[in-house]
Structure formats: C-alpha cells, structure tokens
C-alpha cells in the first residue's frame, strides 16, 4: 500500500509534468495532409513549405504533412482523398471547386498586385511586332497549360483580338522541366521565339533580381487582374478545422517564425509569400470566363 506521502509526491510530479508540457502547444490526433502544387520541383516545394507546414501544425494542434503534387495530378489526387487541404493556382481552384466542391480558404499575396496577378504577352523591345495582330505567322512560347497567367490569360487575350493560337501562329511551344516561366521569358530575350506568354509576377521578380531589365521587352497586351495562388479545403474537412486553418493563414505576418532543425525560420519568407487575404469565390469568375472561352478545364468540351 502506498503511503499518503507517496501519493502526494506522485500527484505533485504529475502537476509539474503537466505544467512543463503545457508551455508548448500540444500536437496530437490524426495527420492533416496538405497538398502543395509544385512550381519547379518536389524538393523545392518541400523546402519552401516545410516551415509553413510546421506553423500550421502548431496552430491547428494536429500533426501536418506536406505533400508535393504535380499540377497535372492535383485533381486526381484531391478526388482520391490524398489530402485535406491544398495550395494551388487559381485555375486549379475553379476546377476543384467545380468538380470536387473545394472550400475557398485564403488567397496568397505576392508582388505588386497583392493577392491578384495578370498575364502579359511580351516581345523584345527591338521587335517589329507592334500589336497582337502582328503575331499571325509568328513563333510564340507559352507557359504550362494549367498556368492561369502563363497560358490561359494570354490565350484569351489572343482570342479576344481575333487570333486563334492553334491556327494563326506559325508554331507555339511549351518549355519542359523546372523554371518554365523564366525559360519562356528568356526564350524571347535570346530570340528563339518572337513572343512569349509571361506571367506579370515573374517579369516583376526577374526585374527586381536584375535578371532582366524593364527596357528589354515591350508588353503587347496585359490581361485583366485575376486572383493568385489559393488555399482550399476538401469538402469533407471538419468546418471548425477549416476555419482554424484559414485563421492561421490570415494571422501570418512577416515576422512569424518556427523552429526547423534548431533554427528560427521566417515562415512567409521561406515560402516566397507576402501574406494571405480572404477573398470571395466570385472573385474567380473572371478565370471561369477565360476557361470557358479557351475551352479549358473544367469546361472543356470535345
């Protein structure tokens, strides 16, 4: 039989342990899987989003796992329940909304346009091409097909100008591998193509980094401003968890840090993100209009 003194000692020890462990937020329960759309490579995606995932884990009190996903595979994996939350471009958002009833959580802010961005058609400053009409019979380079501001926006700009990229261009190409948007811009810069479908954000970042100069190109046309990359939740995710997830994203500031491998890391800086903004589904209607016009998913008809 334990004595009264032993019982008191055990009780005190338990209180001390609870006090010490209570200083940190406890993380427990089933793993929350977050799918991140790859920009350049799976390794880069994991490195970028590891701190954000750790932060979300702390805020949700649940273990979170980052899953890098190829853009083309995103919908299939989402439909198969491979993850609870996803980070994807705005075209993927309308596809997932239409087909998988994804819940809109928050939109990423990056660059001069904040949580919005645009696509541009550029030519070299010294090009003889002066207008979209001059693109007939020319060689053009686009970003990947599911890129809202690297393909869709420019495809629409051309359709609006009465040019069918499939028939009226001499040829159009899509670069392979990583850093596609940079390759598109360099494709025109080095004269391999006459015109390029360049995301405005990439032009801005490359100019800021000194890779290109503002005088290197002329912008033939710029699309309407549309929402940028977006976080969404699968329809079966518990509403309370989704609200907490959104709240955690909106509360992120430039000085928010997490500990990764013993180092304090700034979450937003690591993820190349300026912050998050709450937007409405109707803000994405412009992209829906573009996708319909360009006969692209989720409205594609054969």
């Amino acid at each position: 039989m334990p004595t009264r003194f032993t019982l008191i000692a055990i009780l005190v020890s338990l209180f001390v342990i609870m006090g010490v462990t209570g200083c940190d937020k406890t993380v427990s329960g089933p793993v929350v899987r977050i799918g991140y759309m790859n920009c350049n490579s799976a390794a880069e995606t994991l490195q970028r989003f590891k701190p954000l995932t750790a932060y979300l884990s702390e805020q949700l009190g649940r273990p979170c796992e980052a899953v890098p996903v190829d853009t083309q595979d995103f919908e299939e994996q989402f439909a198969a329940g491979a993850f609870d939350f996803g980070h994807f471009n705005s075209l993927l958002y309308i596809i997932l909304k239409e087909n998988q009833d994804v819940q809109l959580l928050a939109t990423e802010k990056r660059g001069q346009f904040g949580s919005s961005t645009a696509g541009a058609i550029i030519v070299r400053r010294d090009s003889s091409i002066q207008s979209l009409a001059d693109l007939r019979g020319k060689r053009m380079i686009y970003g990947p097909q599911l890129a809202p501001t690297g393909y869709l926006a420019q495809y629409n700009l051309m359709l609006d100008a009465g040019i069918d990229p499939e028939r009226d261009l001499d040829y159009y190409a899509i670069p392979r591998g990583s850093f596609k948007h940079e390759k598109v811009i360099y494709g025109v810069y080095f004269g391999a193509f006459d015109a390029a479908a360049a995301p405005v954000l990439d032009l801005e970042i490359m100019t800021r980094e000194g890779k290109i100069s503002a005088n290197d190109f002329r912008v033939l046309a710029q699309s309407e401003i549309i929402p940028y990359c977006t976080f969404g939740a699968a329809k079966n995710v518990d509403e309370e968890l989704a609200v907490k997830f959104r709240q955690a994203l909106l509360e992120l500031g430039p000085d928010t840090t997490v500990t990764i491998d013993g180092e304090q890391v700034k979450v937003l800086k690591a993820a190349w993100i300026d912050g998050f903004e709450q937007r409405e589904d109707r803000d994405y209607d412009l992209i829906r209009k573009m996708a319909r016009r360009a006969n692209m998913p989720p409205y594609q008809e054969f």
Partner: protein
Amino acid sequence: MFQDRFDRLLFAGLLLTVAVLAGLLITAPIDASHVSGRVMDRQLEQEMSYQARIAFLTRRYQPVIVQLGQGALPEALLTLEEISRDLPGEVHSDLLRGDVFFRMGQLDRALTNLAVAVRQNPDYVDSASPLNQRQLIDAVVSQGMPQLRDRLRAQPGNRSLEQVLKDGYYLQSRLAGGCE
C-alpha cells in the same frame, strides 16, 4: 598664503587678467548678423537640398512619367521595380505605383501605395509643394472608398480590406488637413 613678493606679483597678474577678460566679455557687442547669417545658411542649404531632391526625382523617374503618358502601364510598373532596386525605400516609387494602379482600376492597391507615400512624405498632399499630388490622391480616395465599403459590407471581418480602408481614411484625413 604668499611666500614672497613674486607670489604677490603673480596673484596680482592673475586678478588683472581675469578682470580684463570679464570686461571684454561684458562690453563685447553681440554680432546679430553672424547668427542670422548662420540661420540663413541653414535655410539656404535646406532649400538647395530640397530643390536638388526634386530635380533628382524628376530626372530619375522621367522614364516612368513617359510610360504613364503613353499608357504603357505594365512597363511603368517594371521600370518602378527596377528603380526600387537601386533606390530601396524611396517613396516616390510608391506614389507612382499608386498612380499606375489607379489607371489600371486597381483601387485598393492604389490606396495602399499612396498611403505609404504620404505617410513618408506629406509633401504629396501639400498644395504649395512642387510634389503636390492632391488631385490624384483625391480621385483615388473618392472612387475607392465607396467601393471598399461595399466590399467590406459583403465580407465583414476581412482584415486585408479593413487595412486598405484604414489607409483610405488616413488619406482622407491628410487631404482634409489638421485643425485650423
């Protein structure tokens, strides 16, 4: 205290020197022109530095002004990005960015950028300043604020919009001026 005659002589000499110095100090005329000259110099320096700054901004941002005039708005934003790389923290870039966004119809981005510019340099709302941009700021505020309030009504609790609204109110207040 005095050991010999030499000590007394030394002490008398010291007293005389102190008396003469005190007399000089009391009778010395105050050179008002010298003081006012220094103030004038400082004012001149400030004026010259201000004029030099305006000349510098005009020259450095001339390509952006030309692009704005031509309606080349995306190019203007890229040029501003390039200038910001060379002159980080120069709020004239924020002011012109606000102008570009206004012309693009991006009123919330325009409000945010203009608020940054005015917070750092109130000359933009000073009608007597060569940097005066009251007309632009007034147009952005009067068009942007009703739109923002509508959006916020539809999305209460949207902190990004609330922040832009605060920037708008700040600009409104700067345009109105202080108590008179």
